[in-house]
């Protein structure tokens, strides 16, 4: 081995190797690559690479993800969770586009193109309104996301049904006969198990 770790296994990573794989970006901007791109530059890139699934305005085609809109729907019966209405950090937009999009052709966009697309997604969500707005490492962390403050820690253990931890009821636990209130067969959306009859 070329190092003095306890088991002397593996080898030291080179700087170029780390640079090639270290693509993650944090909310504080750590990891942002050099580069820049404007809303106006992002629009044709989006049209060419993204709109076929996500729609011209980020509205989503079919069941593909909706990217824009949905502000003030998080308490609705059917919330619309988008970059603008739900995502806490802009860094995630850049990071995820660069790492995994377009779906089926990941890692095909330049860093500048990802800046331009990120700016365009901000524009689709009315978070910036100027088509000449340019996103770069210089102003990246100044962009606040509307829903950032609505994320809270895991408070499940404090929920009433867990917190009590008392011996559960074993007999006569409900008054009167139990009634069926909902049936899956009414909805009838389970795939037919094929000719074997599974799944009804």
């Amino acid at each position, binding site marked *: 081995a070329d190092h003095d*770790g306890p*088991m002397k*296994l*593996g*080898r*030291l*990573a080179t700087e170029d*190797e*780390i640079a090639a*794989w*270290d693509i*993650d*970006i944090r*909310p*504080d901007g*750590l990891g942002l690559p050099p580069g820049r791109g404007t809303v106006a530059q992002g629009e044709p890139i989006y049209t060419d690479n993204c709109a076929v*699934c996500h729609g011209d305005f980020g509205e989503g085609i079919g*069941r593909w993800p909706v990217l824009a809109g949905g502000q003030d729907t*998080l*308490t609705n019966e059917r919330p619309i*969770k988008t*970059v603008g209405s739900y995502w*806490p*950090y802009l860094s*995630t937009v850049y*990071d995820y586009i660069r790492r995994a999009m377009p*779906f089926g052709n*990941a890692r095909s966009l330049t860093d500048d193109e990802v800046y331009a697309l990120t700016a365009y997604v901000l524009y689709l969500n009315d978070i910036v309104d100027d088509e000449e707005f340019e996103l770069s490492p210089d102003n990246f962390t100044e962009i606040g996301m509307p829903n950032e403050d609505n*994320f*809270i*820690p*895991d408070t*499940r253990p404090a*929920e009433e049904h*867990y917190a009590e*931890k008392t011996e*559960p*009821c*074993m*007999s*006569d*636990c*409900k008054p009167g006969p*139990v009634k*069926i*209130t*909902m*049936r*899956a*067969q009414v909805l009838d*959306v*389970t*795939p037919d*198990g094929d*000719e*074997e*009859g*599974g*799944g*009804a």
Partner: protein
Amino acid sequence: MSGRNNKSKSGVDTSRRGFLTAGLAGGAALAATGMARANGDPLITEIQDWNRYLGDGVDAAPYGMPSEFEAHVVRRDVPWLTADPVSSVNFTPLHELDGIITPNGLCFERHHGGVAEIDPADHRLMIHGLVERPLVFTMQDLMRFPRENRIYFLECAANSGMEWRGSQLNGCQFTHGMVHCVVYTGVPLKYLLDEAGVKTSGKWLLAEGADAAAMTRSIPIEKALEDCLVAFKMNGEALRPEQGYPVRLVVPGWEGNMWIKWLRRLEVGDEPWGQREETSKYTDLLANGQARRHTWAMEVKSVITSPSPQAPIAHGPGRTVITGLAWSGNGRIDRVDVSLDGGRNWRPARIDGPSISKALHRFYLDIDWDGSEMLLQSRAMDETGMIQPMKDELRAARGENSIYHNNGIQTWHVNGDGVAENVEVS
């Protein structure tokens, strides 16, 4: 050869489908059995093909497959759930399985960019960030670290997620089948991190896959050092490609999304990364518009796997076996209670087989069924005293839009014919 045929010489279709169809229709199968009995069962009184003719030799199946009569025991998917089968999920056929170990070929799949096909000779694992020595390992290197064998369940955070608003999918494969449990062989993550030398400022770990989604999650360093494994074998053989071949992360008790497959990179940092899979996804929206994040542990949970909608009671009244699975991300299961009347009255079930922390537990309740309707429920309790809640209790605390972490008590309605349905009860 007729020995591979579904028809017995009595003409009774012995396949599962025929069994169910005939059984549910009543009459026909019983009548045939009755006739057979009058003159002696021809399956006994007549020489069968498999008694007479030779079967396959040992060279016929270098890698064996289940009997053709088990062809219905397969993973299934629900096409309408997702936009595309490449970023989607399928379901373990829990209703057909027993014990606590899931066969490798039946372990549910969840991919975000399809199955990466990687030659292990081409695979690399990098550790970098806040470490003394950034390192690159080959698979050969990983195989030289000390190994451990551990049995754990892996449950998708979205298991039962379609049921938040009420009964939707009719079968425990679909309502609870995003779970599997195997023996993992791997290297404690601690050994790899020690090899690189985590700096005292290192508080978080980013794990990343080599697939087209480059799946990433932030994991607190305490968990990484406690019990995570970098695993290359499941149930004794190499990981299946769909389970991360050649190497995946094992994060015991925590939501399946964090068990990064095709693991290629571990970065040590001082803050979480706020990745897509821990902001947009795997955060749990509450009724008030706030969302919980970092909801890592899978809560105490159970389900009756038989009888269930895909596994009706086909034998009529009398002795029957109620069986199911229980598990908790907090540790071992202490107890499972079963109700036949929708939660009014409960009796303890029998846990059989090994009781292993953060693994599936198998329970049974052997009853004499009088043929009357039942509303079957199971309720698990884990060693920390956590009790599986009712779905309405979860909804009262969280609303109906959390998507993830639905561990509410499941109800199956069993009618007088033994047919079971997914229902909700008052």
